[in-house]
Each structure stands twice: as C-alpha cells, then as structure tokens.
C-alpha cells in the first residue's frame, strides 16, 4: 500500500571533472513508496530548481532496466539494496521513513566523474570497439537455420548478452576491475558459431584494451556478481580466462604468406 516517506539524502555534488566534489545534504519530503528512486530524485530536483540552484545531475534513459545508464552507488551498493535491480527499477518502498541515504557516483579511475553522479563510461565503449563485434560480409541474408546452435549454447549466449554495460560490477569491485563486463562481452559471442572466427583474437584485444584503460585486476571477491543487475556470473569470468589462456598459448603472428595479399 502507498505510504509517504521523509528522507535525508547525502549526495555527491561535483561541478565538473576538474573540480573537487563534496557531499551535500538534502531533505526529500513526502516521497511516495510507489515512486522509483529516480522519480524521488526528480522530486528533489524540482525543489532545488525552485530555489534557483543547480539540480543534481544523474544519468538515466530507459527507466526500465535495459539501457544501463542509471549509475549511482546507494548506501554503499551500486543500484541500491535490491538484487538484480537497476536504480530506475528500485522502488522507494525499499526504504523506511526517516532513513538517511548516501548517494555517490561510480568510483574508478577509468570512469571519471563528469558532473555530480554522472561518470564517463567511454572506457567500456573502447573495450567493445576493440573486439566486441563480429565481422559480417554483407550480402543476401542467410537462411535462419544454416548455422545450428545448441539450445544450451544459445541460452548461455543469451545470459551473457543480458549485460547492459552499466558498470555496476566495476563500481562494486574492491579493485575496480571490469572482468565481469568483459567476460560477458567476450562470452556472448564466444558461445555462438558467428563468434568463432575472431574468438581468440577478440579476447586478447579486449583484455589488452581493458588493461590500457587502467581498470583493476580480479582477485575473485565475487562482489561484481552480487552487484550485477543482470545476473552475469563468476563462471563467465572463468570461461573468459580459459579463452585467454588458450589464446595466449596458441597465438601466432600474422605472417602466413596467404595473408599478405
């Protein structure tokens, strides 16, 4: 049933990437338990705008858990206290009247804060561009069943492809490692026949781009798995490690004369 809450917010405010930031306290009054967390912030922002101040800047787009934009750490957990839930899907009924809520941006060197709660996740885009694709010669579309895919591989590929690139895994990881994201992107192609030709080059290129972005390294704490709104598992990381080890053991430079022309 709908109730109303009065909350205290501690929000990270930062003018731009160059400025120092700080926590600022706001009161969120008469918040319906049926609002989403982002709607609660909208209400608080209206009040801030009425006072002639700058509203709290936060990323959002789909507001239905599929775009991965709504990045913020709520009371020490990316996307807040509910499992498998993005901030936009988080309802205010998850909080109690009188609560103090601390809201911070993702913290990682490769995700610089642009403003308040908004970080630049361009590092993820560059990782995708380094190998998260398949090369398809264009032409007439192929018959749909020309490439058999086992039901299990198709399911595993779909599970991995559920990753929305939100970055919660990096935010939650004590080492700010991007391994869960990376493994999802490497694996959803690796499970399918279309991903095979570039499979081993892909994993090497994507790991090297991840390292170039200066993400941390995995120490198997499992915080990413617990934070992931899409249920990507640690097993996916192990699968990528297998591919990486195999790729490193079998890598050969492109010197074959057949490749020269």
């Amino acid at each position, binding site marked *: 049933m709908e109730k109303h809450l009065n909350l205290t917010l*501690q929000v990270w405010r930062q003018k731009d*990437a160059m400025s120092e930031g700080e926590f600022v306290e706001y009161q969120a009054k008469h918040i319906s338990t049926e609002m989403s967390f982002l709607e609660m912030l909208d209400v608080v922002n209206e009040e801030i705008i009425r006072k002639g101040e700058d509203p709290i800047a936060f990323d959002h787009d789909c507001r239905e858990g599929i775009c991965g934009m709504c990045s913020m*750490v709520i*009371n*020490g*957990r990316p996307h807040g206290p509910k499992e498998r839930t993005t901030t936009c899907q988080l309802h205010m009924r998850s909080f109690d009247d009188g609560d103090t809520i*601390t809201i*911070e941006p993702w*913290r*990682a*060197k*490769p995700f*610089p804060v642009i403003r308040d709660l908004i970080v630049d996740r*361009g*590092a993820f885009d*560059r990782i995708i*561009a*380094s*190998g998260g694709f398949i090369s398809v010669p264009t032409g007439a579309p192929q018959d749909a069943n020309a490439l058999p895919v086992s039901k299990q591989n198709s399911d595993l590929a779909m599970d991995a492809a559920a990753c929305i690139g939100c970055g919660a895994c990096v935010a939650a990881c*004590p*080492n*700010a*490692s991007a391994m869960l994201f990376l493994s999802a992107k490497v694996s959803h192609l690796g499970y399918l026949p279309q991903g095979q030709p*570039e499979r*081993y*080059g892909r994993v*090497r*290129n994507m*790991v*090297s*781009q991840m*390292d*170039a972005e*200066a*993400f*941390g*390294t*995995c*120490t*198997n*704490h*499992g*915080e990413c*798995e*617990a*934070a992931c709104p899409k249920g990507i598992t*640690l*097993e996916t*990381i*192990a*699968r*990528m*490690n*297998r591919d*990486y*080890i195999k790729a*490193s053991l079998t*890598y050969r*430079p*492109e010197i074959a004369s057949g490749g020269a022309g």
Partner: protein
Amino acid sequence: MSVAEQTLAGAGERSPGFMDSSVGRKVVMAITGIVLWGFVTVHMLGNLTAYMGAEAMNHYAEFLHTMIHGMGIWVFRAVLLTAVLLHIWAATSLTLSNHAARPVGYRKQQRQSATWASRSMRWTGVLLGIFIVFHLLHLTFGTVHPDFIKGDAYHNFVTGFQVPWVSAFYIVAQLCLGLHMWHGVWSFTQTLGWAHPRYNALRRNFATVLTVLVVGVNISYPIAVLTGIIH
C-alpha cells in the same frame, strides 16, 4: 580526464605480453600458488614423521638431503624460490594496479560476498613471507635457534618449539596460511577457468578440507611439543 588510446586492430594483431596483461599475471599467481600449495601439503605430511619418533624423522630428513645423489633438494629449493619470487612479484604488481584503479574511494560501502580471507590476501601473504624467512633461519640454518644441531632434525624441532613465543608465532602464521589457502585454492580454480556448475560446490569444499587439514596438522606440531606429547 583519462582517455586511453583506442587500440583498433584486426583480430590478433596486437600482441601485448602475457606477463604484462592482468589475466596473465593472475595466471602466474595461480600457477606459483599451486606449487606453493602442493609444497605446504607435502611438507605437512612429511612432518608427521615427528609423531613416529626421532629415528623416523631424522631418517626422513636424511632422505630429503640425499635423494638423487643430493641433487633433489636443490631442485626443490630452486623451484620453490622461483615460485615464491614470481608469486610476490605478481602480487605486488597486481596490487599496485588495483590501488591505482580507484584513486577516490567511497564514503559508504556494503560488501556482499567478499570474505575475510579474500580481503586479507595481501596481509596474510606478507606475514607468510616474513614467516618463511623466519622458518628458514630457525629450522634450516639454525641462526635464530637456541640449540641447533646440524643433521638432528628431531632435536631441533623439539627444542625449537619448546620456546613458547616461537610456537605462538608458528601458530599465528599457520592461521594466516589457512586464510590465504582457503581463498587461494578456490581462487586458482577460478583464475585457471575451472568453473562449471557441476563442480562449483566441490571447488569450495576442496579448498576447505585441504585448508583445515594442512593448518590443523601444522598447528598440532608446536602444541604437541608444548604439551609434552612429542619430547
């Protein structure tokens, strides 16, 4: 703002060194970890001869020193030293990358799945490093031993543990080894990619059983000496 260079290249064209990559250094950590873990397990088993009396233990020690015409022990030492050095190198370099990756921390953080063991790896590791040096000075070289007799392993073992603070230090070090091994053994299966729903529970249980066994038996040695069971 830090923007890394885009490394667009055809599949496989870039060739970053294995040992430079994060996953590669993790693999070094895992493989050297397996060597060290195999060593502590065999070491624990070998010391069981202490319960069989002076003759058995000294005989075992002599075997270690004379096997393969005295070469065996040097091969072991070389492998272990290499493993320890690579392990420490990988640990240090990975830890530095991890610290650099989060220059600004959180005000609030609620951990969900990290364990005491996983979070203390670098500290238990450092303590193990100190312990290894002490242990060598104590029972291999005898430098810090009150009454060291070269070639009489049993005597050195018993008189060594009769010093209470030394025994206490060994016990604390073994508890650290327990934390380190418990996360480490599970962790290397993950790093090397041995994850599968069918075996996931087994991986945890394997780490637990092994850790309890190694640490339990190792701790029993100083306790047995202090309580006079071994004398």
